C-alpha cells in the first residue's frame, strides 16, 4: 500500500456519484493512507441519505486501514469539490461523469471538464459501464518527458490493483518533405525500439519504469489521429482504465493549443485518469 497518498471522494446520492464512490473506495483501499469524503446534499431532505452513504464508505475504508474524514456540505458537487481541493493538497480526486457530448454538453456543460480546468490535482473521471475488476490499464504516452509522471502514477495504480499496463503512443505525423524518415512513421513499437527512434527510446524507458514497479507491461504504437486512436484502443483492447497526462501548456502556446486530455475524456467510454504534472507523491 502507498503510505502517503491522499484522495478526495464524494457522495451525493446519485447513481453516478455512487459508481464513482465505489471505484474510489477500491482504489483508495489499495493505495491511499488518507481519504476525505465530501457528502454533498442539494436539499435538507437529501442530507441524511448522503451522509449515510458517506459513513458506509468511510467504514469500508477504515477496515482497509485508511484514515477517513467525512465533510457534510450543501451545494453543488462542482463547487464543493473544487472548494475542498483548493483547501487541501490532494493527490487524486475521483468524480463521476455522464459523458455529455455535442449539443447536450453545450446546453448542460460538463462537470468533469469544469473540475479538470479548476484544479491542478490529478483526477479520475468515472464514466461508462461499471467494471467488476480493474485488470488492464491503458496509458497514453506523448513520447516526451511530460509523460513520465503519468506512467509513474499508472504504475503505482497498476501495482496496487494487480493490473497490467499497455503503453500506447500514437504516430499521427505525416512526412513534410522528401527526406523525412517515412519508415518511422509506419513502424510498430518493436521496430521503433530496435531502431532506437525517438519514440522507441521513450517507450523503452517507460517500460523500464513499469517493470521496476513490478508491473506487467507492453508497448503499443498506433497510426492515425491521436484522440481517435487512443479512444479506439481503449475500447477495442477492453481496457478498464485509460490514463493520460493533463494537457497543460503555459503561456501563449497554451492559449493556442487544443486540450487533448479534455477531448479524450469526453470521447472515452470508460474511467479515465488524468495526471497533472508536478503532483507526484
Amino acid at each position, binding site marked *: 500500500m502507498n503510505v502517503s497518498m491522499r484522495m478526495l471522494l464524494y457522495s451525493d446520492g446519485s447513481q453516478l456519484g455512487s459508481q464513482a464512490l465505489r471505484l474510489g473506495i477500491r482504489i483508495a483501499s489499495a493505495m491511499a493512507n488518507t481519504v476525505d469524503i465530501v457528502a454533498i446534499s442539494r436539499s435538507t431532505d437529501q442530507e441524511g441519505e448522503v451522509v449515510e452513504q458517506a459513513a458506509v464508505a468511510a467504514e469500508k475504508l477504515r477496515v482497509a486501514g485508511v484514515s477517513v474524514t467525512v465533510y457534510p456540505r450543501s451545494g453543488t458537487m462542482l463547487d464543493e469539490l473544487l472548494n475542498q481541493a483548493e483547501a487541501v493538497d490532494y493527490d487524486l480526486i475521483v468524480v463521476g461523469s455522464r459523458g455529455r457530448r455535442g449539443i447536450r454538453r453545450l446546453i448542460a456543460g460538463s462537470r468533469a471538464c469544469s473540475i479538470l480546468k479548476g484544479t491542478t490535482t490529478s483526477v479520475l473521471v468515472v464514466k461508462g459501464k461499471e467494471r467488476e475488476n480493474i485488470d488492464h490499464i491503458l496509458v497514453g504516452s506523448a513520447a*516526451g518527458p511530460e509523460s513520465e509522471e503519468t506512467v509513474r502514477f499508472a504504475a503505482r495504480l497498476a501495482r496496487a490493483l494487480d493490473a497490467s499496463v499497455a503503453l500506447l503512443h500514437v504516430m499521427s505525423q505525416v512526412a513534410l518533405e522528401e527526406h523525412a524518415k517515412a519508415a518511422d512513421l509506419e513502424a510498430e513499437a518493436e521496430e521503433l525500439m530496435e531502431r532506437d527512434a525517438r519514440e522507441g527510446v521513450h517507450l523503452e524507458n517507460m517500460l523500464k519504469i513499469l517493470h521496476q514497479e513490478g508491473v506487467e507491461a507492453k508497448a503499443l504504437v498506433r497510426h492515425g489521429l*491521436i484522440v481517435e486512436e487512443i479512444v479506439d484502443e481503449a475500447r477495442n483492447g477492453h481496457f478498464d482504465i485509460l490514463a493520460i497526462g493533463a494537457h497543460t501548456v503555459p503561456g501563449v502556446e497554451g492559449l493556442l493549443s487544443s486540450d487533448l486530455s479534455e477531448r479524450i475524456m469526453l470521447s472515452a467510454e470508460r474511467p479515465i485518469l488524468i495526471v497533472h504534472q508536478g503532483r507526484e507523491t
Partner: protein
Amino acid sequence: MGAGLIAILLFVFALEMMKSGAKGLTPVLRGHLDIEHAADCLGLGWLMAYVVLSGSPAAAIAMALLSAETLTQIQAFAMVSGSRLGASSIVLLLGFIYTLRGHEPWTVLSTGVLSLLLTASVQFPGLLVGVFMLKQGWLDAIYWPWLTHFSTGINAVINPIMGPITQFFPQWALFVLGGAVITLSFQLFDKALPEFRFKRAGLNRPSRLIYRPEIMFFMGLLVTLLTLSVSVSIGILVPLSARGYVRRENIMPYILGANISTMIDTLAAALILGAPQAVIVVLAHMMSAVIVSLPIVLLAYEPYTRLMSGALEWTLRKRRNFAIFLGIFLLVPIVLILS
C-alpha cells in the same frame, strides 16, 4: 528584390499578351477542343495545371480568357477550381514517377496526398456554392470605378511595348507566349520570396503540441497570403520539425486556410486585367471556399479529420490503392473534357 520586380513585370506583360491573344483562341476552344460547358472548363484548368506544374498560371489564364469574353463567368470559375485541383494533384504525378523508378516512397508524399484530399473536399462543394452565387448575381452589385482607372494606367505604360509585339505575332501565338511567360513569372516569384522561419517566432514545438484548428486555419490563410503558394506555405513548416514531420491534426486546418488565400495572385491578375467580371469570379471562389471550410473547422472538425485521415491511410496502405487514387485523379479531367 530584383528577381521579384522582374517577376511582377513579366506577370503584367504576360496578362496583357494573353488578353490580346485570347480572342483568337475562341475558335480553337469552341471548335477543336469543344470547350463549351463548365465541366469542360473544370477539366481544362485541371489539365493545364498538370502541364505547367502549377495552378496559378492556369487560373490567371482563365482570368485572361474571361476578360476577353472567351469564357463566361461560370466557365472561368470552373476553370479556376480545376486549376486548384490540378495544382494539388501534381504530387500524384511525382508519386507516379517514383513508382515507375521502382521505389515505394509514396508515403513521403503523404502531405501532398492529404493536401489533394482536402482541396478536393472543399473545391467540389465550393464549385456548387460559387456557381450558385454567380447565377444569383450576389456580387454583381459590387462596383469599382477605380478598377478602370487602374487598368487604363497600366495599359498606358505597357501599350508602347505591347503594340509592336501584338502586330508581329498571330493572336493564338500571343496567348501561348503569354501563358509561357506567366508560368516563368510565377517560378521567378517563388525564388524571389524571402525565407520565413517559424522557429524564430517561437512556434518550434509542433511535434508535441496540437494547436487549435481555428488557429492553424488562420495561420495557413495568413502565411499563404504572404507566400502566394500553398506548397511554399507548407514548406515553411519544415523547420518546425527536426525530422521533417508534422502532425496531421495541425496540417489539415492549415491547408484548408491556405487553399483560400492562395487565390490572391489570381485576384491580382483579375485586377491588372481591369475586368470587374474576373474580380467577381475570384471573390466568389474565395468566398465559396470560406463558406465550405469555415463550418468544417468550427463545427464538424472531428468527423471531417477522421474522414480525411481514413482516406489518407487507405490511399497509402497499398500500392494498388495508390494506383487507383492516381488513376482517378489523372483520368477525371480527361473524362470531363471528353464528355
